[in-house]
């Protein structure tokens, strides 16, 4: 049998990353602004100066402002990303991967840190690009929250964390083979710990009480509060985060290669980023035969 259809994309596409969701200037600016707001939303307690009493008064309600604002910003980013560059193929792939990611979260929603949700997100961001990774992170968390009933004030922060992990996976340097798997596994482990740590921050101001050694003290300065926060993090969630880091890292080590291969094959077959060119019709005559 002769070659089957020669619609396999060329090597250039197969071996480099494709930007399935392209970051246009407007989307990039929005992404940057949202990220900034997000960073502030997570870390404001550390940088709070001045009036301690006012700070204390707002320690409980400040997170809620971010909880209200972040989803709106995320929605704006998603719509900007979708504009023009998100075609049916990308939507299909997003839907499938988000569903798979959500399904991965169902069997054990975080029991003892076994939460393999990032294990799919990271290879996907790696293969399909940072824009795709960002969107997939958000969607996976939303979908899984809806399935597991995990909707709550923590949701926007989780969405943000996952989006950054997917985005970061798409920014990793272009190495191949064994190094790639090692790099991704390392990234998965680090990302999991960071995710856990950063997510502690949003509720720390009111979650840790007011008079313990790891409580948030408004206006006490960066060093003091960072110290308190690290104590808080170590005592409350680090064990959990470490298990999750190991779980996801090992999963990437073991299953990373076939998953990457499957994603690359899907991306190749869907011919993402292959240009569609309509050549001008060379002086078309109107007398078509057989008619």
């Amino acid at each position, binding site marked *: *049998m*002769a*070659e*089957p*259809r*020669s*619609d*396999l*994309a*060329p090597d*250039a*596409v197969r071996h480099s990353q494709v930007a399935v969701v392209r970051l246009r200037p407007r989307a990039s600016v929005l992404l940057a602004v949202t990220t900034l707001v997000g960073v502030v939303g997570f870390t404001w307690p550390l940088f709070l100066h001045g009036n301690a009493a006012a700070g204390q008064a707002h320690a409980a309600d400040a997170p809620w402002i971010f909880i209200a604002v972040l989803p709106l910003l995320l929605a704006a980013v998603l719509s900007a990303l979708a504009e023009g560059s998100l075609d*049916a*193929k990308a939507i299909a792939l997003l839907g499938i991967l988000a569903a798979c990611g959500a399904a991965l979260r169902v069997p054990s929603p975080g029991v003892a840190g076994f939460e393999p949700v990032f294990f799919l997100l990271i290879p996907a961001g790696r293969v399909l690009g940072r824009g795709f990774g960002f969107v997939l992170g958000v969607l996976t968390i939303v979908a899984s929250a809806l399935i597991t009933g995990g909707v709550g004030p923590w949701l926007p922060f989780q969405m943000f964390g996952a989006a950054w992990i997917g985005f970061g996976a798409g920014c990793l340097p272009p190495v191949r083979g064994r190094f790639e798997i090692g790099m991704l596994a390392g990234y998965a482990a680090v990302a999991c710990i960071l995710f856990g740590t950063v997510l502690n921050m949003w509720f720390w101001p009111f979650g840790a009480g007011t008079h313990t050694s790891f409580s948030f003290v408004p206006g006490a300065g960066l060093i003091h509060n960072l110290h308190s926060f690290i104590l808080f993090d170590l005592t409350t969630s680090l064990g959990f985060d470490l298990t999750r880091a190991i779980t996801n890292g090992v999963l990437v080590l073991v299953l990373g290669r*076939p998953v990457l*291969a499957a994603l690359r*094959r899907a991306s190749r*077959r869907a*011919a993402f*980023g*292959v*240009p*569609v*060119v*309509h*050549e*001008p*019709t*060379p002086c*078309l005559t109107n007398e*078509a*035969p*057989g*008619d």
Partner: protein
Amino acid sequence: MIRFSDVTFTYDGAEHPTLERVELAVGEGELCVVVGPTGSGKTTLLRAINGLVPHFTGGRLAGEVLVDGRSTREFRPRELADVVGMVGQNPAASFVTEVVEDELAYTMENLGLAPDAMRRRVEDALDLLSLHELRNRPLATLSGGQQQRVAIGAVLTASPRVLVLDEPTSALDPAAAEEVLSSLTRLVHDLGLTVLLAEHRLERVLPFADSVVLIPGDGRALVVGPAAEVMRNSPVAPPLVDLGRLAGWSPLPLSVRDARRQAGPLRLRLEGAAPRPPLSADLITPVEARLSKASVHYDRVVALDVVSLEVRAGEVVAIMGRNGSGKSTLLSHLAGARPPTSGTVAVGGVDPSSLAPRALVARVGLVPQDAGIILYSDSVGSECAAADRDTGLPPGTTAAVLERVLPGLPVDRHPRDLSEGQRLALALAIVLAPAPPLILLDEPTRGLDYPGKARLVRLLTELAASGHAVLIATHDVELVAQVATRAVVLAEGEVVADGPARDVVCHSPVFAPQVAKVLAPDPWLTVDEIRDALNVEIVHG
């Protein structure tokens, strides 16, 4: 209805255009069959009709494709969804829902139709494709032919005016394929749909085809025209057309009935000549496989009922019979899946179900109906290497066998990206590498084009000549006519006929190949036999 004006299409990164300067016009209500060897661009041509080429695949398109007055330059595939319905090879791959009715309604839900219109059209589709008895069945429990009919029905509910089918029977066994094709011809005749169909099983569709598009695939231009004219020079042709060309009949017959009406003179010319004598019936080669009074029961179902059978080295035995007659059960027991309920099964004198896997593959090899299910690596090369490892063969053995079966298969290709024929070749190579004396094939011609079939026939003949015993379970009577030395017909788990292939096949209206039907009562099976006989006649005359 459909018009290609000077269409040239090149995939991104490809050196040569896949379609070059295509001019094509298909009128309203036409059934147009697209013919060509695998890889010639049939799929590309069909996908250009609803704009998947180039909008989905990328690439450069010059010229214009007009469908019902809409150009695929301006209209994207989704804007053509109400005009063009598309059905692919594997129906299960396109299903979204779980139940027949839901699947039929799904297309319309996407188009935003009103519920009462949806309801009505679901009923229409159920009737048109005779699916009403299956309406509440889960899709996964349907047979292949039923699934493909549901897939066609799901497309029809959008009431398109053009139906495009890309080898809709490739993944089906011949009985199911026939079921789908007869549904299709009914749609063309009853509804006046315009249908474009790429198909390997030409013997079934040609009698109904209004026009044929031939893509030669070797760089020559497309040929379009009435079926009988185009088939005269087609490199891919069913036996009937080959026979007509050999005998110089005009107009070229496309159905057995037309051929028979012209066959009188040929029968006279062949009088006195006889086909080559079959392989001697009393072979003295060793018995490779033996079933004695073997019965197999699944719960209350009797799959094999006291079957006794011997297969000797050098024989090619065709096992025929309808679905569920016990063909696959017979093969799987010879392959040692489990011992029979009663009686004995022996391969090379040993019960195959008692053998360790490695010893088993060295004695008997089974190529399953869906060759893909024994392929699980991510490339052809690693598949071959894994096969060597699993069977303890020196590295490179399987790859060498593959090179003999089908030279030039790209080593880095993913097995799922291969064509059916290529996948079969790979599975065959894996099975043949340990050189088992007994080779079993389950429906091996599924999805093969004519060159692929010819290659399979050559390979099986060589294997038999080199002392392998070959058992083929098949519905494909043309394959049996070309390769089998002996035919066994099973019905309800019992052997109802067993004898030289020619005797068994020629005397059955169901199992007779096209040539035999045309030349009955003379026992001719293949066009090659007639060619030989005529040549002899010319030499002597």
